[in-house]
């Protein structure tokens, strides 16, 4: 799978003060951007003052989405069309075999060339969008749902449960994501759904920590205190204030994470553990085609290009979302 982390790319926010507060128990948190407070709460807290008079904080705000964002959105639009309605773009069925025309280079009839069975690579790439995207998004959904439940459970369930959940995530995070995914696939067997669950399970602990950290921050917030002072029951405060306010950063992180989830998904496919042949998943196509790259270069270039372009686009859009989100809520914190 990916040798890369199922961890936020450029995770935000480890200001030095934050790291200091975190101390050594939460190494992974730095990676997930989850913030948690350990140790005693300083009894006398005041609102932050730093940045009080700081023109440097004023950054030139781009007026319009940059060219990059526009291009990225276009790429995503094309991928979305391919995923929803591949017939619109594809030239023929993705599994239409034509051994006579096997391994032809790109030409007019086959813009991306043909594979070893004479299937049209372009049509397969188009049809593969749905699988690849489903795999990526699906695993993110699994991770978000599982991670959120786990994280909220830790916060809501009291000290013992919190400790248990956190140690379990410690253990799970000590597994390289790939290892975890492989184990899950071993238990469940290969296939699209299982690969989704595997990747989701591998990144769920990170989400759990993020949610937990966020929920802890929210739980200490002024409005939760205000609700308690109003005499609202604990659980209702949790449902009304803590849960909804813990989720937005998770969703933003999920967007950024989708890119790496897609890579993880196609890497699993590359290892033959994802969607099954003849499904034209991009990673699987590359895996099947790599022995023939020197005979039909399109086979080695285009599926990889498709993954890369999609992930670049998602990362560009995701980063922009994240920046906007952070600019709105956390800018100036500390």
């Amino acid at each position, binding site marked *: 799978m990916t040798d890369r982390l199922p961890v936020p790319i*450029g995770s935000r926010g*480890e200001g030095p003060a934050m*790291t200091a507060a975190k101390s050594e128990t939460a190494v992974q948190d730095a990676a997930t951007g989850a913030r948690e407070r350990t140790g005693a709460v*300083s009894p006398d807290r005041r609102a932050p003052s730093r940045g009080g008079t700081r023109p440097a904080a004023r950054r030139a705000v781009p007026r319009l989405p940059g060219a990059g964002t526009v291009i990225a959105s276009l790429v995503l639009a094309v991928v979305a069309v391919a995923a929803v309605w591949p017939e619109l773009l594809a030239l023929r069925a993705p599994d239409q075999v034509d051994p006579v025309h096997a391994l032809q280079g790109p030409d007019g009839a086959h813009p991306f060339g043909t594979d070893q069975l004479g299937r049209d690579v372009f049509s397969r790439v188009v049809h593969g969008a749905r699988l690849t995207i489903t795999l990526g998004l699906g695993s993110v959904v699994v991770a978000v749902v599982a991670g959120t439940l786990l994280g909220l459970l830790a916060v809501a369930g009291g000290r013992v449960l919190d400790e248990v959940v956190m140690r379990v995530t410690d253990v799970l995070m000590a597994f390289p994501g790939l*290892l975890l995914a492989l184990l899950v696939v*071993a238990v469940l067997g290969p296939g699209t759904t299982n690969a989704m669950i595997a990747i989701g399970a591998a990144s769920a602990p990170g989400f759990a920590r993020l949610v937990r950290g966020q929920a802890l921050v929210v739980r200490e917030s002024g409005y939760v205190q205000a609700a308690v002072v109003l005499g609202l029951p604990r659980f209702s405060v949790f449902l009304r204030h803590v849960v909804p306010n813990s989720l937005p950063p998770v969703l933003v992180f999920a967007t950024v994470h989708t890119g790496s989830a897609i890579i993880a998904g196609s*890497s699993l496919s590359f290892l033959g553990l994802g969607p099954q042949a003849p499904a034209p998943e991009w990673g699987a196509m590359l895996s099947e085609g790599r022995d023939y790259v020197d005979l039909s270069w399109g086979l080695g270039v285009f599926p990889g290009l498709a993954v890369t372009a999609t992930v670049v686009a998602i*990362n560009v859009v995701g980063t922009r979302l994240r920046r906007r989100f952070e600019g709105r809520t956390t800018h100036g914190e500390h």
Partner: protein
Amino acid sequence: MTTASPVRWLARRLLLAVLVVFGSATAAFLAMELTPGDPVRTLLGTTPQTAEATERIRHDLGFDRPLLVRYGLFLGRLVTGDLGTSYQLQEPVRSLVTGQLWSTVTLALAAFTLALAGALVLAVLTAGGRRLPRRIAGFFDLLTISAPAFWIGVLLLTVFSFRLRLFPAAGGTGLSGLVLPAVTLALSMVGTLSQVLREAMERSLEEPFALSAKARGTGLLGLRLRHALRHGLIPLVTLSGWTLGALLSGAVVIETVFSRPGLGRVLATAITSRDLPVVTGVVVVSAAAFALITVAVDALYRIIDPRLREVGT
């Protein structure tokens, strides 16, 4: 302002590490137990064996005992450092793992060093600097982050090995065989490292202390090297520890593409052939490595950030 006792700190961290190792081993054990199919039959394949012979092997391997007993025995052996014997390869797991470790560690360290050097250069040269270099570096980061490692590997292999014949096509213990896999792996990491480092550096460059430093006449390069870099190192160290830990068993794809031996592939094979001792062995080793790296990362934090050396409020 009390200084935390380093001994106590270390003891705590090591305890956590042991917990993680045992937890991982248990997880691996359970995963293999949960996997459908009779492990003894899987082990024997469909080789003709009489029922008695099968039962005998089942007994030899202890599969006729209750799950809990097996788990107990498994833990017992683990405590004594005995990782068991591979069902498939009939070789002690320890020697199997140590045999693979070198190749994996070489690749991981080479790739990591390259990636780290690349990230440092990229980030230090561009953080908080002019727009164009930052954009170019940012795009490079984005591209390497977004391109799947297997694709990079296939492309590099095709171009540099098959076409240009600059490097051997099939791994190798020599330096030349290490170049392509290490570069591929490094490329798949450098973007993330450099992005994290640059973002952290740029964040610290917006801090008041950076303004103070500028106001006393410090130049941009000095600002980056003397101030921002240190701040950038904190998330970088975290990420590096994570990456390095994951590399120990996580380089399966690279190992597959480049036909390199390594723990990752041993593990992948062992999982499919349900070679429980090998699976747990590799998991334990990689979890232990991971846990130790985590301790090292924490220790590094304390070197980088003086605030962590104390536990005064």
